[in-house]
């Protein structure tokens, strides 16, 4: 091989290495939450803790309660999530006539298509799989916590025992065996839906007009979709 050809091959090879990324699988997973169906029982939070050994006071998923009231003035918004909603919610101390709307919103990692957490990890310890799941290699994480700072949804936490960052994986160990995530499995009302983008029940839901994502202005392209939530949820 001549020198010129050799250099050309090396350059093309290097370009290919840096520019060509593996094609994304068409079978990406998505998650849909129907807020209307959530009763705030906290079963999902408990199941997640048991399934994934989540440390106390840390949450891979949690439930928020939104109460919007008005006594003749503009709306007042009250949000709470005592213990991540794990043990349910207490009675409201609000005049019922003043309540405009009240509902529960389960939260979890959005497994964004453009995840800021993956972009900032200095050592490539977190990445997005072909199925669209954002994972962390805990044996590689250096514990700099930069990804926690970058996540706009507060989905990541620092595991003070293992000294690394952790978060929801949509129960990757289960979904890759054809099962559903623990939180979806235990939800008594079917408020949490999980499946592949092409699945019929997912397609049916995504065709609804009131479907939305959280913090769209940040252009993170979440793969968790919400049905029946008000403007006050972000």
């Amino acid at each position, binding site marked *: 091989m001549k020198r010129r050809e050799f250099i050309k091959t090396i350059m093309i090879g290097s370009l290919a290495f840096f520019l060509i990324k593996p094609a994304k699988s068409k079978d990406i997973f998505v998650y849909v939450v129907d807020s209307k169906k959530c009763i705030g029982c906290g079963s999902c939070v408990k199941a997640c803790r048991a399934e994934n050994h989540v440390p106390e006071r840390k949450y891979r998923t949690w439930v928020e309660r939104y109460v919007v009231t008005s006594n003749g003035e503009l709306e007042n918004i009250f949000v709470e999530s005592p213990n991540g909603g794990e043990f349910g919610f207490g009675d409201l101390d609000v005049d019922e006539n003043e309540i405009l709307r009240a509902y529960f919103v389960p939260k979890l990692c959005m497994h964004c298509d453009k995840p800021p957490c993956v972009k900032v990890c*200095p050592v490539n310890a977190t990445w997005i799989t072909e199925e669209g799941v954002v994972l962390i290699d805990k044996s590689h994480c*250096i514990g700099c916590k930069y990804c926690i700072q970058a996540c706009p949804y507060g989905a990541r936490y620092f595991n003070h025992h293992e000294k690394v960052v952790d978060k929801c994986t949509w129960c990757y160990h289960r979904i890759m065996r054809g099962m559903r995530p623990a939180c979806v499995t235990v939800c008594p009302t079917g408020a949490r839906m999980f499946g592949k983008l092409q699945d019929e029940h997912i397609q049916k839901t995504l065709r609804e007009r009131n479907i939305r994502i959280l913090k769209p202005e940040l252009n993170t392209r979440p793969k968790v979709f919400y049905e029946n939530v008000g403007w006050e949820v972000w």
Partner: protein
Amino acid sequence: MTTTVVEGFVYPNHEVFWGVLIVIYPYFVSIITGMVTVYAIAEFWRKELKDIEKLVVISSLPFVLSALLPLLLDLGQPQRAFEIYLTPNFSSVMAVFGIVYLTELFTLLGEMWFLFRVDIVRMAQTESNKLLRLLYRILTLGVYDISEKAIKLDKKIIKILTGIELIAAWCLSYVSFLFGVVKSNPWWNTTILPVSFVFGGLAAGGAMVLLLYLAFTRAYGIERKPNIISTVANYAFYFMLAAFALETINTILYAYKEDIAWAVIKLASTELAVPLAIQVIGSLEALLFLKYVCYRCNLGKIDTPFIAIASVTILVVVFAMRWNMVIGAQLIDYSLRGFVSYTPPLWGREGLIAALGVLVAPFIMLPVVAYIFPPYERKLRAGL
């Protein structure tokens, strides 16, 4: 517990993840940028600062070496820190920082070697202490040529290295991008932040040079030159003014625009009353004192207490700026509905005592570096 919810709703995983150590890290980086810039000014533009060239270079080294300490202490898995070089993610500002840091360290070491090469060769031949003589012999790297031609070449190489080092130091200051790129945090997500950070750093570096100049001239019994103090103080004044103006503009813009984050930023600011007061009052005081110092120096008079107070004030103000930037922004929850308070623990790896140790580290290293690479003639020191 270092993080406590003060008001409103916060996401259940929210904590102040980066504590006092990560305040020190950009603080050291700021000082390095400022000191290297003063050195470059001396090398390229202001010949009257030639006298402090060696002083600035040897003083930069302990800060560059210490800049890694707070990072390593803050990491959950510090033993894996080298992974930044083995499996870097080039889209991460932090990974690129690792590369810029090494560039800065090696150019600084190279610059030191060329700047002190003649001294090293002489010491290797004349030093009476056997151990030191061996050390200097090793430091010569086998090069004993101190002919005029060789020294001329050294000077050329120093100029090139200074250029690279200046770029690296300013890139180091891009550590502010590390915060600026976090689009989810409204406090960090501003275009002004990286610019005001650099100017604050330049002022802090100038102040540190002034303080070290006072200390070293006293220790070595060297007469202080008013034009050196005046030039550095003048630079520090304008850099400080720019930093203060940019920070103020940023706050006014936020307050005027009143976007969704402003309500919670306003409330969280109550938690930062002391550092914010230090930042504002200290900036004004330092600016006033620096101008007075320049005025006096131009008359040929040196007011040591005023120089010292102005310099220390700038260093405290820039620390307060870094505190507000790092801690202040983390007090706000990403739900933008509540905020937390932060009290650093006294003990532990991320505690106040450890932080104090890190802050003091460069000043412990500095006498050792100055002993091996004396910035002024040894005979003067011996005469004291």
